[in-house]
């Protein structure tokens, strides 16, 4: 008798990371409600404590001790439609489970003397979650991918006495945690169907790395401002655990076959190369309106592959090529000081995606994005309240039949609401 083998393909078949997110790839650029309302065009303005994130030089302008805390409430609506020419996905649809994401941000700054300001901020500059609603046709590639980061950044900035030039630097301590979850299929000869044999759940520890960033702000005239910032790339090495859970098939013989081949739970490790981000911007004031235009360059080409090593069963280790490309995003924003206590804001964003077509998949169906932003700011004495609304549209993204394993079209929209509360001492 030919040997009876249940093929449990826990190995190479996949488990890539990528990011679905809110800035291209899996960056999250919404780290302050004022900046968010201005479409993130803030590098040459940077006049609230979120400057620690956008342009650290900006905190030198803040000559009072200030704190600001807030978050961005992010909701997604998405849809996957299978490719009629792909026999796996033809006719299939899918969508994310509903999650509301609230990456938080907290900043505090304190001037020292006449020229120096120190500060500390915490924010979540990267993150993603693609968690598909069952029964998801792509669950053998990815059911859930979740990348979380949280950064703490002490910062310092100095400006000339006339306030025309400011420089700053920060040290970012970034902690991150990754979950990758998918099912592994096998053929059940009793039902002559493909069934979910094993769930593979990869869960990293909270691992960390240090990075740095610098910024500069220059005001050549009372109505013109130039800003630039650079946040260095970073690599986080992750350690974690792989947990394999057998999924009963309803047939004892099949289950015994799966059990015999179930790999032991074991340690895993991987690393992710985070990109560097460089931003330049120019801002101009016309009557009560500040208008700013920024260009951001992100070195996503550092995200070449995702390699996960399994320590007990090396045969399970896999390398998923990502081959992302560097991206630019373009941001235009305005802030209008329309009343004594009130500002109104608007912004526009065009954000290129870094992902090659053949890499588009359930882990991260990224796409070029456009966003329209609105917001208001209220300030009275020591109090500040900023609200932002962003309508984010992902261009419809098709694999165009180029995916080796899973073709289809992804449509995604997101809505982001930012809020920050500030207090000046």
């Amino acid at each position: 008798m030919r040997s009876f083998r249940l093929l449990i393909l826990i190995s190479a078949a996949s488990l890539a990371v990528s990011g679905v997110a809110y800035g291209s790839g899996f960056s999250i650029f919404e780290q302050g409600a004022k900046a968010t309302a201005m479409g993130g065009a803030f590098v040459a303005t940077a006049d609230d404590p979120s400057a620690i994130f956008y342009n650290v030089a900006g905190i030198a302008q803040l000559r009072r001790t200030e704190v600001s805390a807030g978050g961005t409430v992010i909701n997604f609506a998405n849809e996957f439609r299978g490719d009629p020419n792909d026999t796996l996905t033809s006719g299939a649809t899918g969508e994310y489970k509903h999650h509301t994401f609230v990456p938080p941000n907290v900043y505090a700054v304190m001037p020292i003397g006449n020229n120096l300001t120190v500060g500390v901020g915490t924010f979540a500059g990267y993150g993603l979650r693609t968690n598909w609603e069952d029964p998801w046709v792509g669950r053998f590639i990815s059911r859930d991918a979740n990348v979380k980061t949280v950064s703490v950044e002490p910062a310092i900035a100095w400006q000339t006495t006339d306030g025309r030039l400011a420089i700053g630097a920060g040290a970012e301590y970034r902690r991150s945690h990754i979950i990758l979850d998918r099912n592994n299929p096998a053929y059940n000869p009793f039902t002559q169907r493909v069934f979910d044999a094993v769930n593979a759940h990869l869960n990293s520890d909270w691992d960390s790395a240090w990075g740095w960033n610098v910024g500069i702000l220059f005001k050549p005239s009372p109505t013109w401002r130039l800003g630039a910032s650079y946040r260095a790339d970073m690599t986080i090495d992750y350690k974690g655990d792989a947990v394999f859970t057998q999924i009963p098939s309803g047939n004892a013989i099949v289950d015994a076959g799966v059990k015999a081949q179930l790999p032991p739970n074991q340690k895993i490790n991987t690393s992710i190369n985070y990109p560097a981000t460089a931003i330049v911007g120019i801002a101009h004031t016309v009557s009560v309106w500040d208008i700013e235009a920024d260009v951001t360059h992100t070195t996503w080409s550092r995200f070449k592959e995702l390699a996960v090593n399994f320590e007990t069963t090396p045969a399970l280790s896999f390398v998923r090529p990502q081959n992302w490309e560097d991206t630019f995003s373009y941001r235009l924003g305005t802030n209008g000081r329309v009343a004594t206590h009130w500002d109104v804001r608007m912004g526009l964003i065009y954000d290129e995606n870094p992902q090659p077509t053949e890499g588009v998949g359930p882990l991260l169906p990224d796409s070029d994005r456009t966003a329209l932003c609105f917001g208001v700011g209220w300030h009275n004495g020591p109090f500040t309240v900023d609200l932002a609304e962003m309508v984010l549209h992902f261009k419809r993204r098709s694999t165009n039949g180029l995916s080796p394993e899973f073709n289809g079209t992804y449509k995604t929209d997101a809505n982001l609401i930012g809020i920050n509360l500030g207090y000046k001492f």
Partner: protein
Amino acid sequence: MTRNRSYARITAALLFVVLAAVPMFAAQGKADFSHVVALGDSYTAGWVNGSLNERHQIYSPAAIFAIQTGARLCQPTDSATVDCFAQPLVTWPGIPGELQLTSPSLTGVIATPYNGVPAMSGFARPYNNLATPGAMLFDILNTKGTETTPVTFTQATPFGAVVERGLGSQVDQAVAQHPTFVVAWIGGDDFFLAATSGSAVDCGANPPFFNCMSPVDRFKTQYAAVLDKIIAGAPQAGIVVGDFPAAVFTQMPYTSLIPAIVLDTTLKPVLNNGQPIPLFGIVNGAPAALPLGSTVLLPSATKLLSGTGIPPQLATLPPFNTLPNAGKPLADADVLTPAEQQAIAARITAINAAIKEIAAARNIPVADVTGLFNRIKAGQVNVAGVPITAAYITGGAFGLDGNHLTDIGYTLLANEFIKTTNSAYGTHIPLAPLSRFFQNNDPDTAAAISGNNVMSTIPTFSPEAIKTLEFFKGAPAQPRFRTTTHGDTSTGGEKDTKQQ
């Protein structure tokens, strides 16, 4: 005035756009799928695990093709005036009873020991899926299902009565229902029935045609006759045909699983000085060592277990001396010799050339079934990363009878016809999804199917299983299976138990 002229210009432009758009739409699909009809044999009928039954007929290649073009499958309760794709549904466990797997080995393959019944025999119009198990081209042109003296395999089975119902031959019934599109994967049983009977002889000039291959000239004549009848009767209908994989005998478990060498109980070769020992069988009418490369047909595996085919010189030696039939030769019909395999492969090659030539002359596209089986062989076919291979029981492409496909296999097959149709007719039929065969996507089906597997393991192929396995092997003048055995079988085992 100016404004009026602008309106006129805009209207003219719009009109032009509309007019231009109409032929563009038409060009998107030069085929009309409002009434699809299929001709063919057991494959097109949806024969799975040695049985024709509704659990698999709903995934027959013909049904899959029709569904993908937008058709709805007829239910037994539908009237003949309803617009749906009608098939000769047979209640589970089918005709004959479907093979099931009770444990992952040859001996775990058992047949459900009772038959289903036709569920739509009174359907008052020809079926859309006219494919009839065992149908040679001769049957497609002639067999009406009322023959009293069978001259072909189909006529010797109940299937002529089940499918054709005396309403005319396959091709006549196809034409009579004014098809707009015809799927005709035909001619396979003009070699297949010989092969599954361990034979490679040509049929004679006149019927009966049992266990034999149609000579190429007659194949050509009959193949062209079927197509020409369709073209004459339904001149507007689109047609797609398909070729046959010549290397199928090196892949199909039925003909390739068991080499004709002495095997131990685990089916591993017994070696003598490092060499396998050939089995003993009838070659050219006389007992002899079977030539290397011979294969024992799957249903004959049981004979091996009792010692048949063990060479006389080993028959007295342990452990073979305990086997009752050791030293007795395998019958000619148990074995395909290399010469027979080559003759059949050569015939398939010739048939494929004929099909391409005849189809090309009529501007009919030919689905590349050979290409599908080549990809399966090369390990290039998978479902969500699970490889679909030709391996028996575990491979996913072939069912438990070893010579027909699984639902997954038929979906892959149907998709070849869809791809060919799309490419030839400029249509956009979506491929049939394999995701419907994810067990967890289809809990009802999964429960129904796994519920069938509560049978006890038996030590070898059961007599019913062998009968099922041998269904396409040899052909008697008497029907092997009656269409009904136990009356109402819709409640399956429970009824059976009560009768006992």
